[in-house]
């Protein structure tokens, strides 16, 4: 590691290289700012195709692969569970593993209106102000797909999607015949020759657009940015008004890094942990935490998974179709429905299916219960040519749902989450609506209990105009620290009815823009 990197005073240090960090750092570097990315995990090899696998449990092996090394200890409705969450810690963060579905939110996800009241009274940024940044993010991430036929707002910078497979064409026709409005799901995949889709694993080419390929790599290419990987920021240092330095650890060595501006992009779980771990005399409640809300307002979405047998013989999984017919129903926020893009036998889904099979007679085969792959294999056989879909149900922000301060320098992430009654009620409505929308189709719900989507954490550094009710201002700057910004999934005041990443990228571009408009000293 060169002293030039660690001893230099940077214009901006970006902590974390996921969608948020990568996108904001790129925009800053392209505007001529000198940017240092600090990433806890490794840069890795560009040719890797690593899938995000909960089966790898040796912390060093997890780190080497770009996974968050430690478990999550989740207390959900008072019941505690430990598991490896789908969470990245390496160049590109979680996004190198993501499925690259970049869907636009709806105006009512941001705006309050009589007809569609907003649970927080609305974001500090209106849809009209925010939409151009979504448009830019769509261009930057080379998003392709077809516009949602139900949408009343334009959707620019959308490239045409690749042709649907025969199975998906067939399914689209079936859904249309049901009176639904399927469209080609918006995807940040450039479909270069040899494209493998790379859903759930690292893309060996600059084809899947993520925090690495659409963020850090183009930033480094400008010559204005540098990357310090395998380097965890352990504390933010400051005088109560400003951040004056970062304490970081790399290969056993403690470093102090300095910059005019510091951007928190450690993810919705990482950033609040860092702020809370930085409590000291000058920041008694932790950094940026005058409101006491750092870490609070944690949201995940509920995954409502179901299988449809559209007929036909094409069993190939694809993540090509989405629909928004159930996005808003009976005056309630629900969410969009999309193809999962995984075969019934694969990781994430096998995890859910295992429970299903274990509860059925099949789980009683001697020695079979608890043997992980068998139920997955049986499930694959049972499901055959089914297409797996997921409904993303918006969960609302509650202060008591939160990520806790880290204990010592442990990497274990502790969260506390209660599923509120209104969420249970909306879930029932969502399931009813899914069943009704697909009446007459052969289908099966795959989720029994409410399933939190631990890959979609958000809301723990929420933005808002009222410093008593928000951590960040509308432009992403901390209310109470002049040169500290948040540009990851933490900013969301509400989780929306769509996947988070397009919104993260849009806000990250806004943050870069605000920093770029600042004087050099962060005044």
């Amino acid at each position, binding site marked *: 590691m060169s002293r030039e990197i660690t001893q230099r005073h940077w214009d901006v240090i970006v902590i974390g290289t996921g969608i948020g960090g990568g996108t904001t750092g790129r925009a800053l570097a392209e505007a001529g700012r000198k940017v240092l990315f600090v990433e806890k995990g490794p840069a890795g*090899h560009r040719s890797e195709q690593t899938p995000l696998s909960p089966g790898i449990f040796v912390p060093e092996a997890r780190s080497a692969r770009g996974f968050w090394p430690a478990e999550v200890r989740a207390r959900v409705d008072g019941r505690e569970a430990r598991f490896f969450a789908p969470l990245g810690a390496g160049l590109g963060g979680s996004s190198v593993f993501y499925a690259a579905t970049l869907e636009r939110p709806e105006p009512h996800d941001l705006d309050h209106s009589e007809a569609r009241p907003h649970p927080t009274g609305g974001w500090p940024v209106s849809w009209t102000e925010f939409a151009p940044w979504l448009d830019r993010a769509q261009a930057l991430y080379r998003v392709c797909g077809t516009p949602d036929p139900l949408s009343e707002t334009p959707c620019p910078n959308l490239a045409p999607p690749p042709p649907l497979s025969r199975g998906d064409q067939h399914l689209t026709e079936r859904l249309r015949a049901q009176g639904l409005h399927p469209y080609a799901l918006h995807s940040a995949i450039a479909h270069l020759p040899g494209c493998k889709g790379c859903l759930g694993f690292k893309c060996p080419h600059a084809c899947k657009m993520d925090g690495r390929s659409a963020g850090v790599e183009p930033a480094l290419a400008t010559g204005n940015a540098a990357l310090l990987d395998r380097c965890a920021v352990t504390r933010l240092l400051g005088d109560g008004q400003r951040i004056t330095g970062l304490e970081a650890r790399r290969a056993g060595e403690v470093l102090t890094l300095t910059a005019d501006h510091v951007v928190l992009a450690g993810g919705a779980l990482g950033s609040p942990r860092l702020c809370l771990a930085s409590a000291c005399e000058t920041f008694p409640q932790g950094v940026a935490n005058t409101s006491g809300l750092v870490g609070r307002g944690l949201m995940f979405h509920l995954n409502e998974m179901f299988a449809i047998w559209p007929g036909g013989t094409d069993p190939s999984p694809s993540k090509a179709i989405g629909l928004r017919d159930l996005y808003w129903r009976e005056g309630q926020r629900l969410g969009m429905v999309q193809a999962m893009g995984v075969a019934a036998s694969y990781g994430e889904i096998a995890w859910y299916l295992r429970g299903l099979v274990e509860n059925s007679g099949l789980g009683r085969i001697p020695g*079979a219960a608890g043997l992980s792959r*068998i139920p997955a294999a049986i499930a694959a056989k049972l499901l055959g040519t089914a297409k797996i879909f997921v409904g993303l149900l918006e969960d609302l922000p509650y202060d008591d749902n939160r990520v806790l301060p880290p204990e010592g320098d442990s990497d274990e992430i502790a969260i506390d989450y209660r599923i509120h009654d209104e969420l249970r009620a909306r879930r029932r409505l969502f399931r009813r609506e899914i069943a009704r929308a697909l009446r007459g189709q052969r289908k099966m719900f795959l989720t029994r209990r409410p399933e939190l989507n631990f890959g979609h954490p958000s809301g723990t550094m929420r933005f808002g105009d009222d410093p008593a009710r928000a951590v960040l201002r509308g432009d992403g700057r901390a209310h109470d620290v002049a040169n500290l910004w948040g540009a990851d999934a933490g900013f969301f005041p509400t989780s929306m009815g769509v996947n988070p990443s397009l919104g993260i990228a849009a806000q990250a571009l806004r943050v870069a823009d605000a920093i770029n408009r600042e004087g050099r000293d962060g005044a």
Partner: protein
Amino acid sequence: MARDDDRVKSGVALVTGAGRGLGRALARALASRGMRVAAVGRDAQSLAETANGSDRITPVIADVSDFDSLRHAFEEADALGPLTLLINNAALYPRCDIFDETPESFMQTTRVNLGGSFAATRMALDRMAETGFGRILNVATFADLHPLPASAAYSVSKGAARILTRALVADLADRFPDIVISDWMPGMLATRMGIPDGLAPDQSAKWGVELALWHDPALSGTSFEQAIEIPPPRGLKGRIKDRLLGRRRPLRRLD
């Protein structure tokens, strides 16, 4: 993902222990299939005989147990083109009763048979991880299952080398599925290391090369004996799964 894989063949093969016996036969067989070969061994003259005037075979002098000399060998091979294939063939079989084996002699055999394989593999991985593509074939034996007398160092080090293959698969298969690593047992050969009435190394090398040029992620971690795949041990879990799914895969063959 093919037999006789064009991408493997477009690069350079590095074969250790190429000065005689099976290594020589492997180097020649690769060259006859059109590959450029870095033939690594300790002795210039026997390497020259291996090349036998072929411009596809480049003799490279190194001792696999001398890791610096091996590093130089890889650098020389780099000059020939991108490395796509490594065959770990170099091995010692000093027959030696346990009372004649010293800790030093035991470790020297281990340093060649296990250390040399690891070192060459590690150096090959530096190169293959750049492209995410490659093939590593380890010449292996069953010596670890029922060690013969006077064979402790050989049995232990070659057995450990088989474990190394599995450890490499554990470390790499998910990240680099297109770096395909597997074991091959050539059988008892009529070589200096083998037995007088064994199989001709040229015949055996044909199978070894067939396997070395077969690039399929599903081969990682498999073992072949001569021309036939050795069925993987099936645990209870696997047997239940096979039965439930009515599945039995035919064994893969090289001939």
